[in-house]
């Protein structure tokens, strides 16, 4: 698909332009300024409108791309490419190269969608709104860049770009122990990316290019690090991001203390960068090592699923509970990938998308409930359904989707993963089934303790969802989750198209190894 103009670059940098626009407009109310309405604290009102405009425009572009995406052609589409660094003697070229294929297209859409959601869910923020919305938009640009980069250096550039917005968003607008959590997030990520950079450079040197489309394991000339070491280095970064047990400890802290919108972005798309990286980089570029690592990945995945679920049950803070459930759900991604087949990988990719939607919605709901109750302690809430039925319905719906109720999106992903992985990783799948059981337990138990049960007059003053932004988010996300639950092919065909070449390569690698041995 060649639209004739750099639509993908436009999509990536549109949010950044919005951020710059916000930064350069005046921050204080002046009587003559038509852009500014007088609001409490003299804060300006336009940043959120600009942020909404920019993220909405990005979403529209993403939807249009999704529609005109050529579903019959494998490989990358909408490619924007030119030479960025071509110093002859440097020995390496870096290209400004972006493109989407079946694997990244749904994730790009998810990012654009959740960015709009996170702007809407921040509608009532009135602390330093200029900076807040500007950083939120920078965050969107960096994630879009990660999902579309076709060059390792640019992938790394956008991967790192996300750090500063996240650090500031958590530590300025967060709650609780936010400084600690923000710094922990940054240090964990930088630690991972240090190894990632070393791995990328080794790959680039050995392949003589940083282009993801050209690097293939069998063409690597004398790598200065053994290929399995490169694989392990890069895997460290992605495992921290995903996250997998035992590298997950930053996640509950960051989630719990982050503002709602940032939790949505964090769970909805930032974690997906880890899963996407594993599929796009590790298994595409180094299929041999990937095929050898299948058992290890399956074990790590199963451990993450079960351990994450057990920890989740014990949580007393509603937001922390959902944060830990992400650890468990992301374990499924590893499990699906470890199956090495098209089905398992499609399921893993689908899990990225559906978990983004569902957990994004769960965090939105928790955030909205918290805005009203000002507590997240499960023990303090009771019978909320009587007072805020609309929010309650949203919460219950998202919870059911999260535990994998059939006809909702989460079910499709998990069943595909199990189908794909059962043949090759029978033991790990059997163990993981416990995780599904536990997921039902922690979600239903949490819902029962907070929303159901007798009416508690303490909460009779609560106002239900009452703002257009809240209606829009809840209805929109619900519709999408149902849509993907009953008609998953909409996204799954694309994902399957995207992972097919990866699976074929692995198959070739495995049979070559079998033939050679």
């Amino acid at each position, binding site marked *: 698909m060649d639209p004739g103009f750099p639509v993908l670059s436009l999509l990536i940098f549109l949010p950044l332009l919005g951020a710059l626009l916000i930064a350069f407009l005046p*921050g204080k109310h002046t009587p003559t300024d038509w852009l500014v309405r007088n609001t409490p604290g003299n804060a300006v009102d336009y940043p959120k409108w600009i942020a909404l405009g920019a993220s909405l425009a990005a979403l529209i572009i993403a939807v249009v791309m999704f529609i005109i995406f050529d579903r019959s052609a494998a490989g990358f589409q909408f490619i924007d490419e030119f030479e*960025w*660094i*071509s*110093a002859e*003697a*440097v*020995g*390496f070229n870096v290209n400004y190269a972006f493109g989407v294929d079946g694997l990244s297209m749904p994730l790009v859409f998810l990012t654009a969608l959740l960015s709009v959601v996170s702007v809407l869910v921040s509608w009532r923020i009135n602390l330093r709104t200029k*900076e807040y919305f500007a950083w939120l938009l920078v965050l969107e640009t960096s994630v879009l860049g990660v999902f579309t980069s076709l060059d390792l*250096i640019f992938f*790394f*550039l*956008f991967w*790192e*770009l996300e*750090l*500063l917005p996240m*650090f*500031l968003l958590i*530590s*300025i607008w967060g709650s609780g122990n936010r*400084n600690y959590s923000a*710094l922990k997030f*940054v*240090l964990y990520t*930088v*630690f991972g990316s*240090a*190894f990632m*950079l*070393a791995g990328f*450079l*080794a790959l*680039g*040197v050995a392949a003589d290019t940083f282009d993801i489309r050209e690097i293939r394991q069998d063409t690597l000339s004398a790598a*200065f*690090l053994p290929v399995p070491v490169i694989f392990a280095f890069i895997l460290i970064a992605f495992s921290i991001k995903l996250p997998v047990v035992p590298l997950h400890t930053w996640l509950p802290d960051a989630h719990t203390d982050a503002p709602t919108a940032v939790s949505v972005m964090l769970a909805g798309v930032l974690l997906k960068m880890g899963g996407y990286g594993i599929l796009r980089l590790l298994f595409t570029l180094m299929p041999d090592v990937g095929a050898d690592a299948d058992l290890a990945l399956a074990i790590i995945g199963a451990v993450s699923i079960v351990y994450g679920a057990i920890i989740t049950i014990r949580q007393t803070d509603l937001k922390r509970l959902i944060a830990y459930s992400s650890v468990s759900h992301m374990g499924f991604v590893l499990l699906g990938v470890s199956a090495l087949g098209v089905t398992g990988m499609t399921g893993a990719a689908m899990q990225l998308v559906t978990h983004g939607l569902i957990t994004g919605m769960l965090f939105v709901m928790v955030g909205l409930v918290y805005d009203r109750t000002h507590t997240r302690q499960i023990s303090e809430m009771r019978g909320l359904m009587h007072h805020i039925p609309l929010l309650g319905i949203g919460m219950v719906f998202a919870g059911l989707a999260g535990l994998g109720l059939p006809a909702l999106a989460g079910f499709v992903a998990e069943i595909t993963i199990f189908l794909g992985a059962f043949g090759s990783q029978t033991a790990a799948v059997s163990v993981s089934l416990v995780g599904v059981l536990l997921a039902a337990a922690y979600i239903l138990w949490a819902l029962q303790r907070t929303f159901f049960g007798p009416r508690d007059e303490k909460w009779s003053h609560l106002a239900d969802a009452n703002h257009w932004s809240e209606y829009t988010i809840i209805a929109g996300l619900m519709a999408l989750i149902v849509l993907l639950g009953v008609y998953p092919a909409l996204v799954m065909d694309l994902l399957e198209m995207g992972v097919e070449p990866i699976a074929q390569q692995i198959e070739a690698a495995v049979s070559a190894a079998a033939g050679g041995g």
Partner: protein
Amino acid sequence: MLSDVNLLGPELVLLVVGAFLLIADLFLRDRRILMAVAVAALLGSIIYSAILLTEGHTGNQAFNGVLVVDKFAIFFQILLAGAAMAAVLVSSETLQRTPSRRGEYLALILFSTAGLQLLAGSRDLIMIFIALELTSISQYILVGFHKDRWGSEGGLKYLLTGAVASAVLLYGMAILLGLTGSTNLSEIASYIAWQGEGKEEALMLAAVFLIAGFGFKAAVAPFQMWAPDAYTGAPTPIAAYLSVASKAAAFAVLIRVFFEALGDDLLAEHWKTIFAALATFSMFVGNFFAIRQNNIKRMLAYSSVAQAGTLMIGLAAISADRSELLGASGILFYLAGYTVTNLAAFTVIILIANQRQGSYDIRQYAGLGRQAPWLALILSFALISLIGLPPTAIFFGKIYLFETAMQSGLAWLAVVGTVNTVISAAYYIRPIKAMFIDPSPEGEDAAPLPRPSNSVLATMGVVTAGVLVIGLHPGLLINAAEAAVAAVLS
């Protein structure tokens, strides 16, 4: 002979105007005029270098091969004069504090810059030593310029340790002269190529002394002990100048001596290991000590030790194909990026200190994000560049250097470098956190900082733009760095 003098132009401009400033101080009362003269001299030096480049004088040797004008020398002449210009432009506060010694201050900066420029163009050990002394003696005085307790302590420490370093350097040069019978770099190289066999130990002894002597100027651990005190005691523009210009010239002369004179495979395999070890040590020492600092000048002093370690990766990374010298061009690229980045950081620090009763305490930076959002953003941007995050100059500089390490089979050194990036993030992020997150001690209503003067604004704008432009479009600078390094090879 006269045409040789022409080749010395960029340095002569500085020396002559410097001497003029010493006298002019007696009758020119206005601080701004004196500063303008100094800036004009530096600008003249840059233009002279550019003319030498465009008129095809590159490769010409002067004074019987003692000096050379090649692209390598010109690269550094321009970089050093630019850094000195930035230092002069942000010095008005310092000059106001010492009204009676304005001419001296500016003249010493010019002398020191001329010395550093000569260093980059020297192809003879004696010339190298003289140039080094010219710049060092000027710098000793500049560090102690304020004559207060900290200034005197810093200046004296710098002087005493500097004298020892000079002695060590001279000793190494003497050994080299005794062994090879020449002080000319290319003659030393040809001697080693023909008759070096069997003399490796003695030659390496000389090399170690040279590394110690130059490493002192570059502030590489374990020769860094002067840096924190000198940075703290010196007027802040001088600290900025030392951190970038001294380091740049030291690496210029290291590249010159080690690739040109001692570049033979016989020795290179050995000194490569020494540089790799020094790089590792320097990165760890600099970063670990920087974590503990509350004074931002001391923090940047230790950070400059760590950065010197990173730069040394380029010296260790002699790629298998010696015709490329990727490590050296990586150093040049990184130095240029580091220069603009550190100058941007120091400019903001000077402005903040002027408003906060000369405080350099990081904890005092709380709330600056509200009071002076642009200053806070620029300082944050510079610190992000120092960590090596995108989209900045050092981000790509690090990729470049680590890449050369990989290509040279030093993957472990690249890993050490990336791990140190993580450690460094822990302290570079502290001022950012203070400015944007910690509540201001004066509450929300603290008065905004007054508008900086035009010269400071222009300096800040240029260096900040430099950080961004090099980060976004590194191609130009890479080509320049490679052309410069190619000159050393031929």
